[in-house]
Structures are given as C-alpha cells and as structure tokens.
C-alpha cells in the first residue's frame, strides 16, 4: 500500500464541481499527515484540459474513454475500483453527491475496503476516522475504521472549495483502464428549463418543509412572502409532492442559495437541505421539534408551531 490520498474528480458538462475542490482541500491536509501524495482521478472523455484546474493535487491520473463522455455509474466505478486496486492509496475520498453515491460502495466492495458514509470531517492521525452525521443530521458520531485503508464518502462543506482551487497542473499521468462491456449506457443530459422565480437571486426566501402539511397551507406562507417582497422556496419533499416546482427546491439536488434572510418554516435541517442554504447571511428557523438540526445552522430559532407564527408575522410585516 501507499500513503497516498486519492480524490475522485467529479465533473459535469465540462466543469469540475465545488465538491471536488472541497475534497482536494481536505485531501491536501490528509496527504501531508500521511506523508503521501494527493492524487486526483480524472475520468471521462477529452477531459485532460480539466487537469489544469487540479493544481492542488501532486499527481493527476487521467483515464480517457469515449464511452465515459457522460458519467457512467458502472464504467466510472470500474475505473475507480481499478485505480484503487492498482495504486493502493491509504485513503479514497469520494463526494457524497449523485455521482459519488454510484461509486463509493462499489469501490469499497470491489477493492475490499471499509467505507464510511456521511462524513463531515475525516482524520488520518493515528487510526483512520471520521466525524459523520446520521439520522438526518440529528446525531453526530466519531468513528474509526478497523483497517489501515478506507473509502470516505464526504458531505459537501467538509472543507472550503476555495482552498482546493489552484491552477498549474501537477504531474499528469495517462492511465489506460479497460472498462469492459457496459450494462449501462448514457443516453443524454437534460439541463433545466429557465422560467419561474430564480430563488438564487432573491434577497429574502421564505422556505417551507414538510411541516406545512398540505398544499393548501402554502398560500398562507405565500402571503408572508408577498408582504416581505420575498419568494417561497422549499425542501425536497414539498417538490416531490408536486406542491411547488423544482425551481424552488433548495439543497443538494436543488439550488444553492445565499439570500440576506432565509426563514425556514417546518424544515428539519437534513444535511442535504442544509448544504443548499447554510451560506445565507441570516437564517431564522421555526420548528416544533427542539432537537431539529436546522437549529444548529440557524442564527435565530424559535421552537413552536409555524401556523401560530405566520399570521402574527404577516400582520406585523404589513404594518412596517
């Protein structure tokens, strides 16, 4: 085995994602603790030009295969597994994102390594370990792995993307990997249609979660938003129910927002939601559950019923 830290480079539509830069920043620190190299695995078709953005890594392994022009859950996993088996890095960092969720467990099984999910922090001093978030963010745990090598699936926000952004490529090494026959073939990427309100540019967002209980109740919150000149945003279940359009969804699979004020009503604060709104300047959370993890990222919190509060707020805001 080596002391290297291998980071999977996530990219889509020709752009390296922030999650990757976060992992590079995290991996940099871990590699220096381990005394190994920070190695980036860049997989795709015609992607070598992206290596120029990966200067944080000492070495960039480029695997080029035209069948992987669009991320392929099976093909990309096979490539990563092969690299991990051949190079035997001490640590493998995969983003806990839509792409990483296809890779992490597959690589762990394929290379026979322990896997730690939901990582918020990763440690390499002494035993390999991590701090993870469980039960929708309600519980935090320190864990260690019973092995000297492991795969870590890392939540967004574990390190600063800025710290991982650095030009001037390290050593670029072309690696040939035979992906074999693929049972999964990409048929095309669909980009979102523009239209509706752009919640990413709003100064104030009134966001609702499952605590809103029914589609009809959204009207009450819309009234508050109108009084504030704000837009209504939502957590994922509200969008999955079809109560608000996808364009209003905040979080991992929705949009990242940074308003001046984010008012979270009846949102528990699962990590997938929080990663979309934690950079708001002022976060006010309202939830009946005093243990709701949303209170951990909020600047102001009130434990109580949103249906009691909202009419009171509408009255007062309209009176301003």
């Amino acid at each position: 085995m080596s002391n290297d830290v291998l980071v999977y480079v996530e990219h889509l539509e020709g752009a390296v994602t922030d999650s990757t830069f976060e992992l590079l920043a995290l991996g940099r620190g871990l590699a220096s603790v381990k005394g190994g190299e920070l190695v980036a695995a860049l997989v795709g078709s015609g992607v070598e030009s992206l290596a120029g953005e990966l200067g944080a890594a000492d070495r960039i392994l480029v695997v080029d295969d035209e069948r992987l022009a669009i991320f392929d859950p099976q093909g990309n996993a096979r490539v990563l597994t092969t690299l991990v088996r051949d190079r035997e890095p001490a640590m493998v960092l995969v983003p806990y994102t839509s792409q990483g969720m296809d890779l992490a467990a597959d690589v762990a099984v394929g290379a026979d390594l322990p896997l730690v999910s939901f990582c918020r922090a990763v440690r390499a001093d002494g035993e390999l370990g991590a701090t993870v978030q469980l039960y929708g963010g309600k519980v935090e745990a320190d864990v260690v792995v019973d092995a000297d090598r492991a795969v870590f699936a890392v939540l967004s926000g574990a390190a600063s993307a800025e710290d991982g952004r650095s030009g001037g490529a390290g050593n670029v090494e072309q690696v040939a990997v035979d992906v074999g026959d693929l049972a999964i073939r990409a048929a095309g990427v669909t980009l979102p249609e523009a239209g509706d309100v752009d919640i990413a540019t709003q100064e104030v967002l009134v966001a609702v979660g499952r605590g809103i209980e029914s589609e009809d109740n959204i009207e009450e919150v819309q009234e508050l938003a109108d009084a504030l000149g704000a837009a209504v945003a939502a957590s994922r279940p509200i969008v999955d129910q079809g109560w608000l359009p996808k364009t209003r969804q905040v979080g991992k699979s929705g949009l990242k927002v940074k308003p001046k004020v984010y008012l979270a009503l009846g949102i528990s604060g699962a990590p997938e939601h929080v990663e979309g709104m934690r950079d708001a300047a002022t976060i006010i959370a309202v939830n009946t559950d005093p243990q709701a993890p949303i209170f951990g990222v909020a600047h102001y919190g009130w434990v109580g019923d949103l249906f009691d509060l909202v009419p009171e707020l509408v009255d007062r805001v309209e009176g301003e």
Partner: protein
Amino acid sequence: MNIAVLLRAVPDPVEELELNDEGTDLDRDFLGYVLNEFDDHALEEALLIKEDVGGTVTVFAPGNADEVDQILYTALAKGADAAKKLGDDLGLLDAHAQAALFADALSGGDHDLVLCGVQASDELDGQVATLVAAMLDRPHVAVVVGTRPGDGSIRVTKEYWAGITADYDVDLPAVLGIQAAREAPRYVAVAKIRQAQQAGGLEEIDVEAPESTARVKVVEMRIPEAGEGAEMIEGDEEAAAERIVEILRAAGVV
C-alpha cells in the same frame, strides 16, 4: 417485469432521540421506527412500473423492528403481490449486514429489477442499494427519479443537481437506488392495511443476522445541543413575531 423492493425500518426522524449509556448508539429501548422515506418512493416506482408493463412486485424487509410487519402489510395494501420478512428480532443491523441479508434473499430469484431507496438515515457504512448491487454483481444506478421500462433494459433518469438530469439505458437485471418516484407515493387507507393484515400473506423467512463486514466502529455519538450558536427566541408566537421583525429590520429587508 418481476420487481423486488427492499424496505427498511429506520428510527422515526421526528421522535426525540436519546443515546445509550455508553454514548455509542441510540437508546433503542423506546425508539419508534418508520419506513425509510426513500424506500417508500422505491415501492411507488415499482407499483407504477407494474401498472405500465405488468409483472409482480415483491417486498423484502429485515425483521429488525416491531414496525416491520406493519410496513410490509402497508406495501401489500398498496398493491405489492408478496411480502417477505427476513428473520425476526435481528436487532441492530448495519448497512453491510442489511445488504448481505437482501443479497442472500435475492440470489437465485428471477427478479428483473431490484429497487431500493437511495439512502437511509442510518447508513454509516455505505448505501444498501449499491452494496446489494455490488454483492450481486449487477449494474446499479443511484439517485433515480423516474423509469421507463423497455425490452431487456430500462431507461432511467438520474438526478444530478440544480435541475440537471441524465438518462441511462440499463440492461436487466439491475438494481436502482430510488430518490423519488415519478409520482408522490400513494396513500393507503388504514382500513385497507387492516384488511391486508387480516388476510395474512406475510411470509417469514428464517435467517440469522449475518456477520457484518462493515469494519467501522463508533467511538462516540453526540446529539448536538439544540440551537448551539443560535439565539433561541423565548416566548409565545407574539413575542417570536416581534423579535423576528426586529431581526428583519436589522437585516434591512423590511
């Protein structure tokens, strides 16, 4: 199309959680369990596929909580054709152990498709859906938000972020990690669940809890202090509204 759906009972996210005396796990004595929300979407997508092209839906769940019977009967009431409980009183199972149970139950079966929620809140050591796929050596796609069954393959839509999706053609048999069904999961009346219960039809498969291969150990668990670092507003809704308007004023938005 013969579809297997993997269901898991997870601690109810709205319940108050407490830790055991050692501080290494939840105190499970009085913990309530519910169906993992993404598994409910997996079941819905399976039922929709069956409605599209015919076939069967079989649901599987490890018997590791009292609520599992209710979860399986609910699936039958919604339209599943068969329900299998894997073991009874198995106690705490990590993701690797759950995946091993499922993989064992599925091996030798003739399921064209295995659907499972994309993640569960207790998957410290990796996602069950991907682990099952890896153990069965079948192709797998995670974060699926819709399917269109074809002949020998299935077209799936995988979600990335910010509204970006990609479509894939996946040869069968395959395993899919469902994030959201095409439609919101159907509601089923309590009376129908009771009917299903009275009709019986839950098959118990006698299995032992498998050895886990997880190799991840919890050293310390914590329930973060509520509102750490936040100003918690005291008082009733009037006091709260009063204070929130002050905060909005200070932020310059009213």
